[in-house]
C-alpha cells in the first residue's frame, strides 16, 4: 500500500503542461487483442481472409469455399466488424453472399451460438471461423433462421440438396433469387 500524496508534492501539473516529448496515442485493448487473434489465425484450407485496408484490422472479410457437403464448390463471403468492446462482445458477422441455408437468412444474419448468446472473451476469431465452416458441413435444422430451408432439410434431403445447388448456380428457389456463387 502506498501513501499517494505527500503534502510536499501535492500540486499536480496544470492541464496541457505535457511532459517532455510528444505523446503517441496508445492502441486500445480491443486493438491489441485483435492483433493477437489475427497474428495467430490458423485458417482451414477452405478459408481465406481479405483486408480491404491492411491498417484496419477491425474490418475484414472471410471467404469460405467448402470442399465437401451440400455447399461444395460454392464461395461464401462473410464480413467481420470488430467493435471497441471486443472481446467482451463478439464481432458482428454477416454473410454477404445470398445462400439457401437453414441457419442463414436472406439478409445475411447468421445463427451461430458463439456469435451471440454463447460468446465468451476467451473465444477468438479462429473459433468463429471454425464455427462458420461447420455450419456449411452440418447445417442445423434445429436452429432455423430460414425456416423453409430447415423444414426441407428435415423432410426431403434430396430436394434440399437440389435447391442448394440451384441457388449456388444462380436462380430462384421459391420466390427468392440467389446470385451465382460457384467458384
Amino acid at each position: 500500500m502506498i501513501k499517494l500524496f505527500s503534502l510536499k508534492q501535492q500540486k499536480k501539473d496544470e492541464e496541457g503542461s505535457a511532459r517532455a516529448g510528444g505523446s503517441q496515442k496508445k492502441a486500445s485493448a480491443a486493438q491489441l487483442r485483435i492483433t493477437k487473434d489475427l497474428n495467430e489465425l490458423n485458417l482451414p484450407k477452405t478459408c481465406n481472409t481479405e483486408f480491404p485496408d491492411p491498417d484496419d484490422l477491425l474490418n475484414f472479410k472471410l471467404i469460405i469455399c467448402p470442399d465437401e457437403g451440400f455447399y461444395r464448390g460454392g464461395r461464401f463471403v462473410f464480413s467481420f466488424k470488430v467493435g471497441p468492446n471486443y472481446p467482451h462482445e463478439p464481432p458482428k458477422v454477416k454473410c454477404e453472399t445470398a445462400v439457401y441455408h437453414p441457419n442463414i437468412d436472406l439478409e445475411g444474419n447468421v445463427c451461430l451460438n458463439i456469435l451471440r448468446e454463447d460468446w465468451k472473451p476467451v473465444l477468438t476469431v479462429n473459433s468463429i471461423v471454425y464455427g462458420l465452416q461447420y455450419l456449411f458441413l452440418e447445417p442445423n435444422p434445429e436452429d432455423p433462421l430460414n425456416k423453409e430451408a430447415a423444414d426441407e432439410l428435415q423432410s426431403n434431403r434430396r430436394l434440399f440438396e437440389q435447391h442448394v445447388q440451384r441457388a449456388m448456380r444462380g436462380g430462384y428457389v421459391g420466390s427468392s433469387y440467389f446470385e451465382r456463387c460457384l467458384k
Partner: protein
Amino acid sequence: MASGETQTSTDQQRRWLHIRKLLERSGPFCHPDFEPSPEILDFIMESCKILIVGAGGLGCELLKDLALLGFRKLHIVDMDTIELSNLNRQFLFRKNDIGLSKAKCAVEFVNKRVPGCEAIAHHCAIQDLDEGFYRQFHIVVCGLDSIVARRWLNGMLMSLLQYNDDRSLDQSSVIPLVDGGTEGFKGNARVILPGMSACIECTLDLYPPQKTFPLCTIANTPRLPEHCIEYVKVIQWAKENPWGSNTALDGDDPQHVGWVFEKAQDRAMKHGISNVTYRLTQGVLKNIIPAVASTNAAIAACCASEVFKLATSCCTSMNNYMVMNMADGVYTYTFNAEKRPDCVACSNSTRVVEIEPQATLQSIYDKLCEDPAYLMKSPGITTVINGRNKTLYMSSIKSIEERTRDNLKKKLTELGLFNGADILVADVTTPNTVTIKLKFSEYQDVEMTR
C-alpha cells in the same frame, strides 16, 4: 452586522468539525504513514483535483457527496442531456433543465448550494479529452453504465503510467480510479491503483455479458416480449431501413424507438405475446437496467469515502472490490480482485529495444526472432501513428503480408517511427500483444521521450 459575521465564521468552524476529527487525530485504521495535520483539510479544499466521470444517477450523488466532504476542485464530464425519466433519481436536475447538459446543470446546482465549491463541467465524451487533461487529476472516480467507456478510461489511466529504467513503476504517475456501478438493487464499488492492483481489463470476466437471445429463437419461436423487440432491432430494421440504409438504429431517438415499438407490437400480436411496452422497447434497445435511487446513493457514498481515504490517507483503502446486493436485506462482500500478470492493459509489458536510427524494419523483425530475449516465431508488428493504427508487417495473413512486405526494406524513420516510439508485437510466444519501445542508439544519453 458584526455579530452576523461571527455567526458565519462559527458556522464555518462547525461545518468541518467532523472532518477535522478524522484528519487531525490518529487512529488504529489510519494508513501507516498518516500524519494528522490541519494541512490535510487545506489540501482537499485547495489542491486536490478530482474528476467525476458521468453525471447520471451515480454522478449526481458523487458530486454532492464529494462537495460536502470538502473537495472543491471537482471536474465532472458527461456528454448526455437531461431527460424527463432521469428526474426521479438524478436529484440535481429539475423539470426546467430537460434538454440541457447534465454536467453543466449538476455543477451549477452544487456550486450554488455548497459554499466554496468550484466544480467545473465538461459537456463532452470522455474520448474528446486528452492525456494532458486526465494527467491533471489526483483521483478519478467514475459512475458509468457502459463497459466500453470504463475500458477506455482504464486504458487512458494506464497509458499515463511512467516506469523507471529498472522497469519499476514510478508511483507519482499513478492516478487512482474509484469505480462504482449499479444494476437495480445490486451494485459494486472498487478501488484501482493503476499498475499496482487489478484493473478493469484484469477483471473483464466479472462483467455479465450483454443479455442476448439465440437468433433462431427470436426469428422463429419468440416467446417473450423481448424476443419481439430484438427481432425488430436485429432483423427487421436492416431489412426495412425505415430511415434509409445508412441510418443506424439510435435508442435515443424517440422516432426510432417508436418505430421499433410499433413493429414489435405487431409481431407480438402475431405470436400471441403480450406486454410489449414503449418502456420495455427503450430498455431493450439501450440495454437499460432499471436504476434504483437508494442503490446509487449507497454505492456513491462508498466511492466518495474511498476517494476521501485515498486523498487524505486517514484510513487504508478498501482492498479492493465490494459487491452489494439489496434485493433481500442488505448483503455486502469485499474481496481482493487479483491483478493479472498478463493483463493487456496494466502489466508492464513495455520493453525497450535498442536499435540504430538507420535500421530497417527487417532488422527489428530479425532481432525479435533471433535475440535470445525474444525468440519469436512470426511476430506481427503494428503501431499507432498520428492516432491511426498502422500495420507494419504481418506474415500470418496472406493479403496483409503481400501489402506490408515492402515495409521490411524501409528504414524505421521512413515508416514514421521515431526514437521512443512504441511498436506493438503479437506472437505465439507471448500471451498478449506486447509493447516495445524503440530506443535509437545515438540518442542513448538523451532522456527518452514517451
